[in-house]
């Protein structure tokens, strides 16, 4: 069956919003993910859908100070997607903030596309702050960026990073945590996508990382646990991070976000089997229906 989905032309502003305004944006991101992955015939559906709410608040809720017209501004905030395989949702967020044309989205993972399977810094895609895809690198990159702004440039830039929970099995991640606390990187906001899913199964079965909150606390971080699909809780966590930074708490902020892999698409929800698979055409049509769009060819 021929699948030629239409992408809406909507772009959204980055501004303070009420919680009920994010739903529409997150739906748009989720539809983009489904369409692009079905067209690409490969890629990571589950995790991308799972963090769509968090990225909606981050990119469209006035938290990340970045400007599509001046994407290399040296005083900008930065977001590093350490879980590089979740690139589809990042691409969608950037396109819908106007960083590049929405037309790019259907080229995901195709030969010659700037939208590589994992973000490629050498693609010169506005809004991408680092190549990621080898798990664990992104958070150390973010610590380096946090050190550059706070310790060297003495500027006030917010540095956000998102890691998976399976990703926390990498030793590098804990070296980054140690270093962030050691250098009192209270300007670092580390979001953990705690969906308890990875490729081989549940995180606790593959290699337990728990107890998580206590681990981060013992490393010297401030930790908040939230429902990663609740916009009020996501906003309040980001507010606390900004407070943490402004009060010079001296501690990195860790937000452990409970999420569901595949959130928003009924048959994918909480199923680790959807970590690395795209929907086929029939599945994509069902998914789009779940996301409020009737597919018509």
């Amino acid at each position, binding site marked *: 069956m021929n699948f030629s989905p239409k992408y809406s032309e909507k772009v959204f502003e980055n501004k303070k919003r009420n919680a009920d305004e994010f739903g529409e944006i997150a739906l748009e991101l989720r539809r983009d993910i489904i369409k692009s992955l079905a067209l690409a015939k490969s890629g990571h559906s589950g995790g991308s859908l799972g963090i769509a709410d968090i990225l909606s608040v981050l990119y469209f809720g006035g938290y990340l100070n970045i400007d599509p017209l001046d994407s290399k501004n040296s005083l900008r905030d930065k977001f590093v997607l350490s879980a590089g395989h979740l690139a589809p949702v990042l691409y969608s967020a950037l396109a819908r903030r106007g960083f590049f044309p929405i037309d790019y989205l259907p080229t995901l*993972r195709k030969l010659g596309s700037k939208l590589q399977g994992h973000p490629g810094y050498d693609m010169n895609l506005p809004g991408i702050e680092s190549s990621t895809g080898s798990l664990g690198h992104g958070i150390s990159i973010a610590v380096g960026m946090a050190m550059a702004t706070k310790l060297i440039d003495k500027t006030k830039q917010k540095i956000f990073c998102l890691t998976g929970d399976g990703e926390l099995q*990498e030793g590098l991640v804990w070296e980054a945590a140690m270093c962030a606390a050691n250098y009192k990187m209270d300007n670092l906001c580390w979001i953990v996508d705690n969906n308890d899913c990875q490729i081989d199964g549940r995180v606790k079965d593959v290699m337990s990382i728990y107890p998580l909150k206590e681990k981060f606390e013992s490393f010297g971080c401030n930790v908040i646990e939230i429902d990663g699909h609740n916009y009020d809780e996501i906003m309040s966590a980001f507010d606390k991070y900004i407070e943490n930074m402004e009060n010079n708490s001296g501690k990195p902020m860790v937000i452990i976000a409970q999420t569901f892999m595949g959130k928003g698409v009924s048959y994918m929800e909480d199923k680790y089997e959807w970590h690395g698979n795209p929907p086929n055409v029939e599945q994509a049509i069902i998914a789009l229906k779940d996301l409020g769009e009737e597919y018509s060819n």
Partner: protein
Amino acid sequence: MKEFKLLGSKPTRHGFGMGLVELGERYDNVVVLGGDITGSVMTSFFRDKFPERFFSIGIAEQNATTIAAGLALSGKIPFFSSYSAFAAFRNADQIRISMCYNEANVKIGGGHSGITVGPDGATHQSLEEVSLLRAMPNLTLIVPADYEESRKATIAIGEMHGPAYLRFGRSPVPMFTSVEDSFEIGKATQLTEGNEVAIIACGLMVWEAVLAAQELYKRKGIKARVINNSSIKPIDYETITKAAMECGCIVTAEEHQVHGGLGSAVAEVVVKNFPVPMEFVGMKDRFGGSGEPEELMVHFGLTWKEIYASALKSIERKEKGFIGVRKLTEIESMID
């Protein structure tokens, strides 16, 4: 020209998975460590059959490699497998010291290697590990050409003592070696008769080399000697030197950077023993990108066509009595 009977196509990773199961049946002390992608690198076959000898280590390649060394120093034969992008680079220090310097009996299966991993893109397309690994003392390094050879090589590295690395791929490749063909570590196999040019390849480029040889014969009547050099280390000095002596020019072909891989290994043998003109087919010092495997092979010049063109060029240089450039303006780099 020898006809090859194709027996369909299968990924080399399946050969690895099946080989592991056979090893598990033969030896009680074979154990497998998982790195969260057991279903991709086919250690799942072993896990399902011998769950008590399978240990999930999580996404922790450095730890898995070092734990494997500890197991090996306790009399086990541990296999750890992940994508080559992470099973050769993330843990390079651990491979060098805990595995190789200890002469620990650790085996690593590096899966999803090369450009043909496809749409995941450059981060996942390992194209440098042959260069890195063949410099490691004590390490045996094998790059099998098809399913059957991958299965046999898995068994062979399991049955030898010492650290070993098997590099295999994700996508299906033509099966042209048979169950009866022998596989021996340290031996290259000659696939076609010919004295005009030698094409020395490894991995999925061996089949491309066969295709190039067929075209050379069909279009130009040129008889090329195709050599499957799956044993990168130890390398078969005799077969390679003989090829240089008898053919007088060599083309190497690999799904890897042209710097430091099979081509460099062959050049070392040739320059030391019997220098002849050489051409190198491989990735030209650049990162890959997303795309479908066949598309990428065409895009980055990793097909029989580049081998064919390189063969003609090397023959021309041989016929001109090439012993080096005559003018400095004729110098070519590895990526020209």
